[in-house]
Structure formats: structure tokens, C-alpha cells
């Protein structure tokens, strides 16, 4: 062990766990993270996993942050290296002064040494083989055992761990006991062989009360349940699958009649994404709230129908949990690479409202908002989440629900309305906001019309007439202008009257905020705007107008948000400076910090 221990770091470090997928490490790592969370210390966990079921490398990164930072910091203070295949890389990832824990059952290559890293060997496999029976149990318990060792090294509260295990295995107390035994094994070994605790350790705080650890897909599914969604159609695709899984399990619990067992929902697993979006449009046409969760490749497949929904004006909600493209890309890695394809999805002149949640709380809120907007605007609405938000556990304040909220069904004519009406013109702009009135099938014969993707006039009839066609598509433009005033406003953080600002979107938020804080500490104070929706409101234009230079931070190669801003606002492209991150891992504060510093220096020099 090197003589100089790093400076004491309480509740402020990063643990990275390198595992082999399919070995049950996920639940052990989650136990570790939840234990810290239950000790009242802010924490965030990010899973870097392969598109594979068993045998490939997988990592889990836990950031413990007393200041509540949620992004990756670029550091690794403690590495648990359980995968021999990636050992070399894992060792090199450890920040100077860090600690590496490995399974010392087998000898380690002498080449794999770093003077600036403390290396702790624990014979995990050996201990588990001695204590547990059966191959499966031995493999699983190895993971729990390292959690036990970390409990000693980090001074975790064993009672908290015990309570979590008891809750998790409420129906299988013998499993809770076995897990606790594994915890003790690791704990005792570490106490006996190492100096515990480390200089990096956890101290109880009270910063996680009234918070939960939830992933964005679960939160979005919950939003769908609360928004009164009755129809879901989907085709399984990573990383959106867990959204529908969560919706179904919520429905089983809250939408199944206690007496008859009848379901007040219908989820259809479609044959492909082309069908899934068709089903959503069919249901929306009928007047049900319907959605589909998907990811980039699904959007490509759905694009024809999405254009139909735009032109025929049918409500629909599409959750695009973005993953790395192009093509199949890296299905289990994150990016914000569908901004442009969502905004202009489909052939012809089309534009679609997009909501950009930044965390699971917003997935919940924006799910509800999306259905209101879809019905109000009678058009497909995108909720653009990403793998980082959708599949990782984020610390969020307890979700709230206002019982006075009622769904906005938009301009739907009732049976009585239609009875009284002289005639019904489906695409007539009665109110001047570009939003026509619609009728639902089955309500009244007077409401009947032929929904079509072919040319139609304000009355809803087929047309190939130049003026009639233009009247409809120009009104659709007016409707889009109306949308700009209805979508959620951007978040603005003014920290200075300076002329330089940062603009970002979605899951970049945490990293940007941390970077801004760090810059602020150095006396560089920048204003910040986080876009929450497209079309861009006047506030976005005003923000761009009052700054001379704006760093646009996003997670894709081509600067898609920047391009959308150039396209859809009146802004000189030269003043929008791209800050791009697109390697598939969630953006860290370090890369933003560096890019902005560099940008500012360049700016100063110029």
C-alpha cells in the first residue's frame, strides 16, 4: 500500500464496478447504491452495459456526491475489477490516488501494477466457494461479498444494507439471510486485512429524504398511467422496452377490475414499429390516449405514419428513448442523436413538437403534458428521452400529483355539439389558432368525414386544388406557431449580465450545471438556458438575441440542436459554438468544462 493516502474525501467520490454481464452483478451494485442513498447521501448510478445477455463486459458507475451532482465527473476513485478481460483497462481508468479491488483467488499479472493506485485483493471466489453451495449461488454471492467489503472500506451502515435485503427478499427470507452472510464475509475480510475505512468514505447525511431513485422509463410509464392512457402499442427495442414493461405492470395493478379481472387498457405488441405507430394513430383517431415507446431505428420505420399523423391531424405520443446511431449503432449506449429526425420526421413539409425531459421527474411530468399537447394540437408529439435518462437510476424528488388536474381533450365536438351544428368541416380554422375541431367516430353521423393522408381541403374533402391545398398546409404552420406558446418554457439560469451563455438540452443538464458551478468558482459566470421543447418559444429567441456567444452543449456528432436553432430561429450561426459529446457514454462535466474554457480562450484571443 502506498504510504501517502489521498486526502480525506467524504461523500464525494466515484465507485466503478467492472463486471461480466449475466452474473447477477446488477442487483449487487444496486444494493450498494441504494445503501448510500438510504444513508441520506446523494448518489447517482450509471450502467454501461453491452448489447448482450451473458459473458461480455459491463460497468456500473456510482457517483457519491454530497453536493448533489448528477453527471459523470470523469473520475474513478474506487474500481472494483471483477472482469479479468477488462482488468488492464479498468486499472488504467483509476484516477491517481484511487483504489482498485480485485478477486485475489487467482494470481494477478505482475505487469498490472500502478504506483499511484492502492490495490486491494480479496479472495472473493475462494470465500464464496467455501461458504455457498451450487454454482449459481457462488457466482451471485461473489458480487454481494464485494459489497460487504466496500461496506467496511466505506463505512456503510450494515443495518441499512440488512433492511434493504429484507425488503428485497420479503418473500424469501432464506435468500435475505444468505445475502447478509455474503455481506458479512466481505465485511469481515476487509476489516481484518485492510485499514478501514478508506480516506474516501460515506458519512450519514439527510439529503435524500423525500427523494426516490427512479429510471426515466418507469417514470414515463407512470406518467402514461396518470395521464389516462388506455392504448399502448410497441415493438421491443432497447432502450425503450422497459417503458412498456413498466406501463403494463402498473396497469395490471391499477387498471384491472378487482371483481371481473377485466382490463381498462389494451397493450398490443406489434409485429414491427410500422404497425405500432399505426395502432397508436388508429386509437388516437378513435379518441383514446395512445402511445408507443421506441428508439432511433423505430423512428425511422415510423416516419411515414408520423407524417400521416401530422397531415391528417391525429393525436399520438411517441417516446423516443434515444440510443447511439446511425443505423443499429450501439443499442445500449446513449446519445441525443434523433433531434433532427424527430423534428422533421417524415417526407414532405412536416414539423413536430418535441418535449425534452432532463431527468426521470420530467419524464413523468412531460408524459402527462405530451398527451395534453397531442390532443390539444391534434398531432404526434415526441418525448425525446435517452438511454441515460431512461435506463439509469436517478435521484429525484418524490413525484407529485395534483388531484385537481384534468386531461385536456382538446377541441372535440360532442354529440350535442354535432347535433346542433349546421355542418361539420374537419379542417376549418374556426378560432384562428390553426387548430380545427375534430369529431370522433361513432358519436354522430354528422361528424363523419374521411381521414386521409392525401390532399384535402378545409372541409375534409379530397382535393388536388392548389389553393385548397395551400390553405390547409398554411394553417398547419399557424398551428405550429400556436404550439410554440403551449409547450413547456425553457429553464433559464441567469448568473451574470455577461454576453456569453450556455444552451443545452435533456440529459446534458446535470453536467452543464456542474461545469457552470466549477467555472463560477473560477470567476467565470455564464448564463444558462435549457431547452425543454420544440417549437422554440419567443424566450429562446430572446435568450439567443441577448448573448453574443452561446455554447450549445449536446450529445451528438453533428450538433443537431444547434442546427435546429439555426433553422428555426433568427440567429447568426457564427455565435452558436458547438460543444459536442458523442462517444455513447453519458456526458461528463469535465468535457464541458474543458470545451468552454478552450472556447473562451479562443474567443478572448480572437
Amino acid at each position, binding site marked *: 500500500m502506498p504510504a501517502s493516502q489521498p486526502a480525506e474525501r467524504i461523500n464525494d467520490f466515484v465507485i466503478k464496478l467492472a463486471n461480466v454481464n449475466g452474473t447477477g452483478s446488477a442487483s449487487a451494485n444496486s444494493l450498494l447504491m441504494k445503501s448510500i442513498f438510504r444513508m441520506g447521501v446523494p448518489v447517482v448510478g450509471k450502467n454501461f452495459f453491452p448489447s448482450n445477455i451473458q459473458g461480455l463486459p459491463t460497468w456500473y458507475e456510482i457517483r457519491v456526491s454530497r453536493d448533489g451532482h448528477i453527471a459523470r465527473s470523469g473520475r474513478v476513485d474506487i474500481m472494483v475489477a471483477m472482469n479479468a478481460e477488462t482488468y488492464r483497462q479498468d486499472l488504467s481508468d483509476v484516477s491517481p490516488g484511487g483504489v482498485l479491488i480485485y478477486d485475489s483467488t487467482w494470481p494477478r499479472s505482475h505487469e498490472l501494477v500502478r504506483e499511484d493506485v492502492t490495490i486491494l485483493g480479496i479472495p472473493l471466489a475462494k470465500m464464496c466457494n467455501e461458504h455457498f453451495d451450487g454454482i449459481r449461488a457462488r457466482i451471485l454471492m461473489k458480487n454481494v461479498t464485494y459489497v460487504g467489503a466496500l461496506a467496511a472500506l466505506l463505512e456503510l451502515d450494515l443495518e441499512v444494507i440488512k433492511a434493504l435485503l429484507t425488503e428485497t427478499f420479503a418473500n424469501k427470507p432464506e435468500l435475505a439471510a444468505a445475502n447478509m452472510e455474503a455481506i458479512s464475509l466481505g465485511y469481515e475480510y476487509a476489516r481484518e486485512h485492510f485499514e478501514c475505512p478508506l480516506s474516501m468514505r460515506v458519512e450519514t447525511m439527510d439529503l435524500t429524504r423525500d427523494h426516490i431513485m427512479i429510471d426515466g422509463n418507469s417514470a414515463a410509464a407512470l406518467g402514461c398511467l*396518470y395521464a389516462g392512457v388506455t392504448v399502448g*402499442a410497441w415493438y421491443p427495442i432497447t432502450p425503450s422496452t422497459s417503458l412498456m414493461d413498466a406501463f403494463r405492470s402498473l396497469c395490471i395493478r*391499477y387498471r384491472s377490475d378487482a371483481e371481473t379481472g377485466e382490463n381498462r387498457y389494451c397493450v398490443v405488441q406489434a409485429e414491427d414499429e410500422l404497425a405500432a405507430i399505426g395502432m397508436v394513430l388508429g386509437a388516437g383517431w378513435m*379518441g*383514446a390516449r395512445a402511445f408507443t415507446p421506441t428508439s432511433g431505428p423505430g423512428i425511422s420505420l415510423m416516419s411515414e405514419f408520423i407524417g*400521416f399523423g401530422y397531415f391528417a391531424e391525429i393525436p399520438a405520443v411517441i417516446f423516443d428513448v434515444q440510443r447511439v446511431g446511425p443505423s443499429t449503432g450501439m443499442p445500449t449506449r446513449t446519445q441525443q442523436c434523433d433531434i433532427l429526425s424527430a423534428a422533421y420526421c417524415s417526407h414532405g413539409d412536416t414539423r413536430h413538437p418535441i418535449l425534452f425531459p432532463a431527468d426521470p421527474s420530467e419524464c413523468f411530468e412531460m408524459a402527462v403534458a405530451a398527451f395534453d399537447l397531442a390532443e390539444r394540437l391534434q398531432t404526434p408529439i415526441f418525448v425525446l428521452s435517452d438511454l441515460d435518462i431512461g435506463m439509469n437510476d436517478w435521484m429525484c424528488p418524490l413525484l407529485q400529483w395534483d388531484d385537481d388536474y384534468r386531461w385536456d381533450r382538446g377541441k372535440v365536438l360532442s354529440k350535442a355539439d354535432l347535433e346542433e351544428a349546421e355542418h361539420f368541416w374537419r379542417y376549418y380554422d374556426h378560432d384562428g389558432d390553426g387548430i380545427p375541431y375534430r369529431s*370522433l367516430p*361513432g358519436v354522430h353521423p354528422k361528424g363523419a*368525414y374521411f381521414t386521409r393522408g392525401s390532399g384535402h381541403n378545409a372541409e375534409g374533402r379530397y382535393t388536388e386544388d392548389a389553393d385548397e391545398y395551400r390553405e390547409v398546409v398554411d394553417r398547419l404552420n399557424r398551428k405550429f406557431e400556436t404550439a410554440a406558446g403551449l409547450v413547456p418554457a425553457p429553464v433559464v439560469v441567469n448568473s451574470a449580465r455577461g454576453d456569453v451563455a450556455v444552451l443545452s438540452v435533456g440529459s446534458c443538464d446535470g453536467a452543464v450545471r456542474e461545469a457552470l458551478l466549477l467555472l463560477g468558482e473560477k470567476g467565470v459566470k455564464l448564463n444558462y438556458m435549457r431547452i425543454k421543447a420544440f417549437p422554440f418559444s419567443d424566450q429562446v429567441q430572446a435568450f439567443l438575441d441577448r448573448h453574443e456567444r452561446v455554447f450549445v452543449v449536446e450529445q451528438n456528432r453533428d450538433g443537431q440542436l444547434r442546427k435546429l436553432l439555426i433553422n428555426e430561429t433568427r440567429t447568426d450561426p457564427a455565435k452558436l459554438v458547438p460543444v459536442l459529446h458523442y462517444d455513447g457514454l453519458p456526458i461528463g462535466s469535465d468535457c464541458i468544462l474543458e470545451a468552454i474554457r478552450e472556447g473562451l480562450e479562443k474567443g478572448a484571443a480572437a
Partner: protein
Amino acid sequence: MSYRPKPRIAHPGLKKNALGLTRRDYEGGMSTLCAGCGHDSITAAIIQACFELAVEPHRVAKVSGIGCSSKTPAYFLSASHGFNSVHGRMPAVATGANAANRDLSYIGVSGDGDSLSIGLGQFCHAMRRNLDMLYLIENNGVYGLTKGQFSASADVGSKAKKGEVNEQPPIDPVLTALAMGGTFVARSFSGDKEQLVPLIKAGLRHKGFALIDVLSPCVTFNDHEDSTKSYAYTRQHYSPALETDFVRPAEEIMADYDAGAAMSIELHDGSRIVLRKAAPDYDPQNRGNAFAYIKDKLRDSEFLTGLLYVEETSRDMHALSNTAVRPLVDIGWDELCPGSSALPGILKRYR
């Protein structure tokens, strides 16, 4: 295309159905298909069937894809909501619509291009789900709107108007439906109203997916030698090159024949189609035998028509997923949103 409103003239003496509606009340806009098109006869049969069944027009939802056939929902039941979707994807729209509102009657109109090529997957999966709808394929063996390319139902050896010979075996919708677990499988001919109207009525009444493959000659692009939907023994000779853009006015084909008898019908171009009605003792409830029998007849170039297979006890999509009997669109807010009181229980597992 319903851009020309049809004058509504109702003679006082017109026959009325149980709802007090006349046949005119089931009509739609003017057809813009070629004169003599088989599809218009099918439209007429749908109108007749709905009138006779006395369905409430606004309780019907009409859905279609793209193609000549898919235009036709504009020509019947103008008091019904219609949905002219994208090419080959009508089954998906019907699935979602039916999921949301199971109380309406769904009439889907598709063609051989729409159902057997671009939409083959959706066609199969709608049957697999046993979606409760009537699904008509107006089958003419050609792509009419794009001017005469072979469709997937064109027979081997049939010659296109420009002389190209089809070498690929056809996909037969009836055999496909039997293989996919279709629960109501019928074939008819657009000119045979006597057979078609009862089939449509039965299909509308069937609980589950009712397929009627309706052979429907294309007067414009089947108007040549060796045409797809004929097994012509005697063929009249035309010059396709000269007729590409020429639409001949023609009478609708009417067929009339006795049950059990095979007969060949002369099409507009003089080629022939051989029809055989299911024998009166045909057992439409034995899937395997039906499949073998139909296939045998196809080998002899005979299209067996009538209700070829029916499974009345089958469970439809909603029965399979145990959906509420009440349409989902009729379920109110209070029964859908669990409210704030349920949140703590839901969120407990995330602590």
C-alpha cells in the same frame, strides 16, 4: 374521392330498412374509378349488405390502405368515419381503433398490392390477433394506380400489358389466411352480387377477422392477352402498347351460376376466369381439408368461391387480452387515473 357531392334524391317509394333508412343512406361519394371496374360492384355489394343488415352508418368505421381498392371507402357509407391510411398499413390502424373502441363495426378495404406485398406482414398479424373486422381484398392481380405492374397475386405465366411474363408464384390470400389461423375465410367474385352480399353480411357479423378475397377484374390493365386473373382458353387479342393510356368503357361483369357448378366467365378482354362454388356439402369448418381442397383446385386453375372456412368459437383480440367489455374510449377519467393517494404505494419501491 368524394369531391363531387352526389345529389340526394330519395323517392318516397324507396324501400326502407329496420332503421327507416333507404339504400341511398348507405351510399357515398361518386366513384372515380374506371367505368366497369369490378371494385365498384363490391362497393355496391357493401352498400346493399349494410342496408339489408340495417347497421347504423355512424357506428361503422371504414379503413383502407393505398391503391384503387383503398379509395373505395369514400364511395360508400358517407355517414361513417373513414380512414384512408398509408400503403399496406390499414390493419395496424384498424387494430388501434378497435383496441380503443370495440363497439364499432370495422370494414377494411384493401387490394392485392396493399395486402399481399407491402402489407403482407400486417395482413397476417391482424389475422393472428383475430381482430374483429371485415377485411375485403379487392383482388385484380395488378397495380392499377401505377399502371399495370404485376401484383403478388398474379399467376405464373400471366403477361403484363407491355408483354412481360410473370414467373413468380402467386401468394393466395385465402391459403395465406388459412395458414395464419384466419377464422372466416371466403372468396368471391365482384360480379357475383348474389354470393357476395350474403358473404359481406356474414363477415360483418363474424366475431373476429373475416376475410373475403374478392376477384375483381381491372378493366384497364387486365385488358390484354394472358391477363393475370384469367385462365383463358380462348383469348382475344389486343395490342397493349396502343392501349396503355386508353380506358375502355365497359359493362360490369355479372356472374350467375348454380352451387356446385364450375363455370368460366368471360372477362372484358375476352379472357376467362374459372369459378367453382363450394359444393353444398363442403365443410367450411375443417381447416386442413379446406386448405388441401382449395389448393387442388388452384392447381387446376379453378378459384373456389364461397365461404371456405369459418370458426365461430374463436376468441377475438379483446377476448385474448381480457379487455373491458365497455369500449376504452367510454371509460372516464376517474377510472383511469389512480390519483395522488396511490402514488406513495407506487413510489415505495424506488426508495
